């Protein structure tokens, strides 16, 4: 399918270009500017080159935050993608059950992110939360505000609760696109449920699952509000992720240099991963999918 070649199409793209330039390019340039200067007051700025980058890259707390971030994003993908697919497979294909299921699934996605943190705070607190009180009542010590492991479990639970529905909805959209004739043919051939999944459903879901992986990786990589409300990055630094650390760093000092340098490094990491996924997505699109 060949598109028309016409550079005048740029006129149609111009508004988007301008508005995103205003909210992306200019701010990014400002970050670059701040990252190479030492600004100790108005009119008092010194060019320091890569000084801040060296300082930030050698920062142990950044290494820890990055390690936690990668662990978190990896776990998110490992748990949410298979779980989401399983839910999509169990969803009804027609009838009133579809509407109800879709409605309930989408609910967590429409809740403001800080309220997500509040919900889970209310739910897991050892004094008033359902989960916290129940677990402690069973004799299991559980306190996300004091024990790092409990805080991690709570943050993971919260994210799985919050975002698995997205994966399920995507996988469901992929499943719905499979014509009934495929299933009929499989039944005539006597294919097992596993064979249907492996050779019909999974290949047909490949495109949407790539989108799911991309969205889930990126959104978990920039997570801020939910763990911040829930744990404040603590106890200690145990649930401090990259965004949490960046905001802490930016808020704690008058000099924006280190925070700007960190912001750039952070952005570059996100960009690199984004590029890898984008290439993968393009390959999926050019395959036999459509």
């Amino acid at each position: 399918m060949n598109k028309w070649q016409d550079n005048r199409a740029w006129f149609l793209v111009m508004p988007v270009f301008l508005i995103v330039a205003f909210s992306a390019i200019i701010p990014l340039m400002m970050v670059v500017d701040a990252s190479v200067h030492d600004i100790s007051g108005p009119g008092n700025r010194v060019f320091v080159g890569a000084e801040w980058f060296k300082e930030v890259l050698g920062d142990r707390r950044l290494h820890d935050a990055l390690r936690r971030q990668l662990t978190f994003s990896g776990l998110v993908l490992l748990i949410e993608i298979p779980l989401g697919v399983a839910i999509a497979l169990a969803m009804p294909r027609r009838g009133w059950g579809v509407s109800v299921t879709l409605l309930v699934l989408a609910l967590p996605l429409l809740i403001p992110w800080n309220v997500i943190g509040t919900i889970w705070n209310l739910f897991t607190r050892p004094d008033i939360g359902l989960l916290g009180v129940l677990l402690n009542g069973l004799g299991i010590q559980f306190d996300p505000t004091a024990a790092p492991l409990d805080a991690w479990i709570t943050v993971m639970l919260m994210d799985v609760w919050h975002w698995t529905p997205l994966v399920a909805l995507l996988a469901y959209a992929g499943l719905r696109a499979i014509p009934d004739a495929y299933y009929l043919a499989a039944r005539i051939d006597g294919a097992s449920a596993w064979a249907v999944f492996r050779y019909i459903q999974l290949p047909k879901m490949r495109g949407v699952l790539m989108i799911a992986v991309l969205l889930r990786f990126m959104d978990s990589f920039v997570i801020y509000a939910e763990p911040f409300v829930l744990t404040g990055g603590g106890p200690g630094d145990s649930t401090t992720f990259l965004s949490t650390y960046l905001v802490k760093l930016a808020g704690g000092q008058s000099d924006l240099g280190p925070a700007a340098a960190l912001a750039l490094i952070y952005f570059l990491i996100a960009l690199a991963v984004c590029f890898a996924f984008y290439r993968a997505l393009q390959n999926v699109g050019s395959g036999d999918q459509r």
Partner: protein
Amino acid sequence: MRPRKGTIGLILYLLLLLLPIYWMFNMSLRTNADILNEFALYPADPTFANYIKIFTDPAWYSGYINSITYVAMNVLISLSVALPAAYAFSRYRFLGDKHMFFWLLTNRMAPPAVFLLPFLQLYSTFGLIDTHIAVALAHTLFNVPLAVWILEGFMSGVPREIDETAYLDGYGFPRFFLTIFLPLIRSGIGVTAFFCFMFSWVELLLARTLTDTVANPIAATMTRAVGATGLDWGLLAAAGMLTIVPGALVIWFVRNYMAKGLALGRV
């Protein structure tokens, strides 16, 4: 065909999904003293005091109005700039089109925390701090790329013969686009509006930082639950419950298109 085991599992999962929300609902119907004194699975003596307090105090309910205002602005801006651009990407090959598309995508993926400080500086230069339009503009950072992405998927599903026929019939681009093409993809536009609404509604880090008193979103208002006597859990829960309502209403309208829209029209 499908074993009942799956259905039972699904019902259990949906109930678990609702449980934390139910717990917040439970708390929103109780007074703070009641919550702290006694652990109860359901409100024995339900009271609407928390909700009444929110609806009668302008400092509380203005947060909701502010949020809805900037979200609506954002949806309008995002859609109006993204529609022509998505058409260009779906129909034409032009200089730098692939690079442009990737660059847009990167903005959807950029960590909002990175843009926090420059936004503050930039918007104070233009005198935009603490206005609704500032938040609406800041949210275009991730919503415009998303809108282009989704709309492009829907538009590519419309055969190009329609465009060609219309142009042969003597339609100019603006007339064709507005009177023929847009009605064809109206479900796509609805879905896109839904996603712009969703991501602008749930984002609060930027919304909170760029506002002060006049255009404060609900998030900032919710910190008001921290009073002199400590945190009022009941009030906090009621405020949280109210933030779920607009989303639930919107979901109801787009439920049939939601899954396809999430897949960016590419199923």
